[in-house]
């Protein structure tokens, strides 16, 4: 049999076998295998993408966490500052009020002291006046015991009147 003369029988059987093989393999082998391979490739792809997305989300979460922390720190700072200011103000207010009260009390005391002093002075003045009157009365009585003294006295008084 010439090796380069294609035999009819072999052409027939090869064609038949090849097409049956093509049909069976395409339907029952290549289709599921290619499908599985593609699905796996897609699954791997999407898994990688999901991991990437998760990483990005994590990063953004972290940055937002930091933002939150920063804000909280600032707020704490603010609150502390306000509290400090309030405390200072409260202390200052209290001091003012206290000094005012003290001044008021002092004033009142001073006024009272003054009043007491005036009253005492008046009393003293009255006492001194009474005393002076008493003394003068006593001196007068002693001086004007005899009639000559009384006459002399009246004379001097008359003289004063005349001079006027």
């Amino acid at each position, binding site marked *: 049999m010439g*090796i380069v003369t294609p035999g009819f*029988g072999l052409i027939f059987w090869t064609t038949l076998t090849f097409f049956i093989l093509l049909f069976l*393999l395409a339907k029952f082998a290549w289709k599921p295998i290619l499908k599985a391979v593609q699905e796996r490739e897609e699954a791997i792809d999407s898994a990688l993408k999901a991991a990437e997305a998760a990483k990005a989300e994590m990063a953004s979460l972290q940055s937002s966490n930091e933002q939150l922390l920063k804000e909280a720190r600032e707020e704490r700072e603010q609150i502390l500052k306000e509290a400090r200011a309030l405390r200072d103000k409260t202390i200052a207010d209290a001091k003012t009020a206290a000094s005012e009260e003290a001044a008021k009390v002092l004033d009142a005391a001073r006024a009272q002291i003054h009043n007491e002093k005036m009253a005492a002075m008046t009393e003293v003045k009255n006492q001194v006046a009474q005393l002076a009157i008493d003394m003068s009365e006593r001196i007068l009585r002693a001086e004007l015991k005899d009639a000559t003294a009384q006459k002399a006295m009246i004379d001097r008084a008359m003289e004063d009147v005349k001079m006027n």
Partner: protein
Amino acid sequence: MRGVSLPRILQGLMMNLNRFLLGLLLLAAPAAWASEDVHSAEAHADTAAVHVEEHATEHGASHAEEAKEGFDPATVIMHHIGDSHGWHLFDWNEHPVSIPLPVILYTDNGLVVFSSAEFHHDQEGTHVVEAGGQRFVNIHEKIYYASDVANEHGVYADMDHETHEVANAKPWDVSITKNVAALLFAAIVILALFLSTARSYKKNPNGAPRGLAGFVEPLVVFVRDDIAKNNIGHHYKRFVPLLLTIFFFIWINNLLGLVPFFPGGANVTGNIAVTMVLAVITFVVTNINGNKHYWGHIFWMPGLPVFVKPVLAIVEFIGIFTKPFSLMIRLFANITAGHIIVLSLVSLVFIFETVWVSPASVLLTLFISVLELLVAALQAYIFTLLTALYIGSAVQDDHH
């Protein structure tokens, strides 16, 4: 384009390899028969059909006589790389032991089926088989309607005296020959391999490929991505099953051809009928899918002076046929050459009739067999790659 240059390089490489192998054959075997054989092996690319035919019929009788006296490697090798109606296993006490295969003939009177054993190993047309009311003879593994009486050589056929060919009529022979049986066995192996792989994907979807799938998947992905996607472009998806089938069909058949004993060892992909069917499939698929752009480039090549266009159209039109033709010849020649070389090296022991040549014979055979393992995969790859390239040129969109 990488896709174009790579196969060209490989093609050149393979041609060199073939020359190298043929050279090796020349060195290894006695010049007397080797040159004759190499001559026929080389010449088959063009007009060897006639040559070999003549050679076979002219010297058929003398070959048979020689075979009784001594060993004739050319006959053995030619018998091996050709097809036969029985599957010859070995000789036992000078008697050939074969597995009989069904002979199926479509005659003028309908289908006739009988066992190849009924020829009793006769290939010279001396033994007539009567079946279905008709008489047949086997002459060099071709089946003819037998003549009523034998001629002077005892052959029940008439020779044409001018062409030295058998003049008798032939029925349509669709027998399960050795190659067909090997082909069917390969088909079963392929089906078993890939259907079980597909099952493992059903069992284990989206998991890492294990076992057979781990072996098959890289190859499938390779054919899909590196052969189909790279060379066809974005229409590649519907051609992937065809390319996968071609690739594994050729590869598995090549590998089974390298197995030296039953049920391997048949020269299936080294048979021109098989490679012709594959090449015709490539031809049909390419041209059925050819778009406007493809035919435009064949019959009216854009971007050239008008007077060149008709000339180029003739060249390109011939190219439609020569491309698949080269596929057919390349696969056939490579695989056949491999079988011839291995058999020649094995034959050395019988040619020199000394056992001392066996170390060289075995080592060289081992070397060539390992090389043939590479060639088996490489030829499957090249055939599939070029098919993808031709389809790609037929379906690609108009952009440059």
